[in-house]
């Protein structure tokens, strides 16, 4: 058969086709076989690689999808937390404001009490100082008078001691000593 085909092919003009659309039969056969061979080889050698690449791609896409889903979950969780935190901040702010109000009220009350106490202390200290100063002034005045008197008395006495007085004092001394036993 092959020989007949070869002889037939040899007898025909290779530059002229038998059909305007279809190729030559042999060409179809060879082309078909070659295609089958190529497809077979591709299936055998490139198939697993392609299959593996597809599986890897699928896995990667799945992973990305999973990551996206996880990110979405995390984001939703974060958003929930943020929303919750916002709520907490409002509560905390209210609590802090309330505490600040209480503290301020306590501080004002304490301040009033302390100021009242300090004023009372200052008044009592001022009163004590005044009393002490008055006492000191009296003492100083007394000391001053005593000093002046002690300075003045000898001069006054000296001026008033006449000879007659001196004689009288001598006589009084003699009389008192003589009468002492």
């Amino acid at each position, binding site marked *: 058969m092959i020989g007949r085909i070869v002889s037939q092919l040899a007898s025909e003009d290779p530059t002229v086709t038998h059909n305007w659309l279809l190729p030559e039969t042999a060409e179809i056969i060879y082309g078909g076989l070659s295609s089958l061979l190529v497809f077979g080889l591709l299936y055998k050698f490139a198939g697993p690689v392609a299959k593996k690449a597809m599986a890897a791609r699928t896995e990667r896409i799945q992973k990305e999808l999973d990551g996206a889903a996880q990110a979405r979950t995390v984001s939703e969780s974060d958003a929930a937390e943020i929303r919750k935190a916002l709520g907490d901040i409002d509560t905390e702010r209210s609590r802090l404001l309330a505490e600040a109000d209480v503290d301020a009220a306590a501080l004002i009350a304490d301040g009033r009490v302390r100021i009242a106490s300090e004023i009372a202390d200052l008044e009592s200290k001022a009163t004590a100082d005044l009393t002490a100063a008055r006492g000191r002034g009296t003492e100083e005045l007394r000391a001053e008078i*005593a000093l002046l*008197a*002690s300075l003045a*008395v*000898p001069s006054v*006495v*000296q001026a008033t*001691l006449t*000879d007659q*007085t*001196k*004689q009288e*004092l*001598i*006589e*009084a*001394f*003699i*009389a*008192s*000593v*003589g009468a*002492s*036993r």
Partner: protein
Amino acid sequence: MSNAGIEAYARALFEIAQAEGNIDVVENELFRMARAFESNEQLRSTLTDATIPSERRQGIIDQLLGGKACNTTTQLVSLVVGSGRSRELPAIIDMLVKRASSEKKLEVAEVRSAVELTDDQHKRLAAALTIATGKQVSLKVVVDPTVMGGLVATVGDEVIDDTVRTRLEQLKSRI
């Protein structure tokens, strides 16, 4: 100077005055001289100044006592000053006075007064002090204007003080 030295000088002066026969007068004059020496800073510093020659210091004594005290008194003071014992003059004189009083069995009564006492007051005061102390006293009167008025008598350790000065001091301390 030691006590023995002072006593030796006092004994010597006493014996000289006794030999001269005017111990009472000399004793009184020496006593007054001693009190003047104690109270007068200028006199004391002049008579104890070692830079002044002893002849000059004796000359001062002569000028000071000449005509006011008897010769014996002047010579005795001059003797002490000339021997360089001016600083001990009051102690020597006090010892002499004590010895003289002791010879007469008398206790020295030092009386300070602002003015001189009359003879009558002198006698009456001596009698009064004899009564008050129970001892026969030899009265030595020192005129001391600082007492201002009244008298202060010292007989041994006993002091009878009724001076204006003391009363003023008491008044001052009370004030």
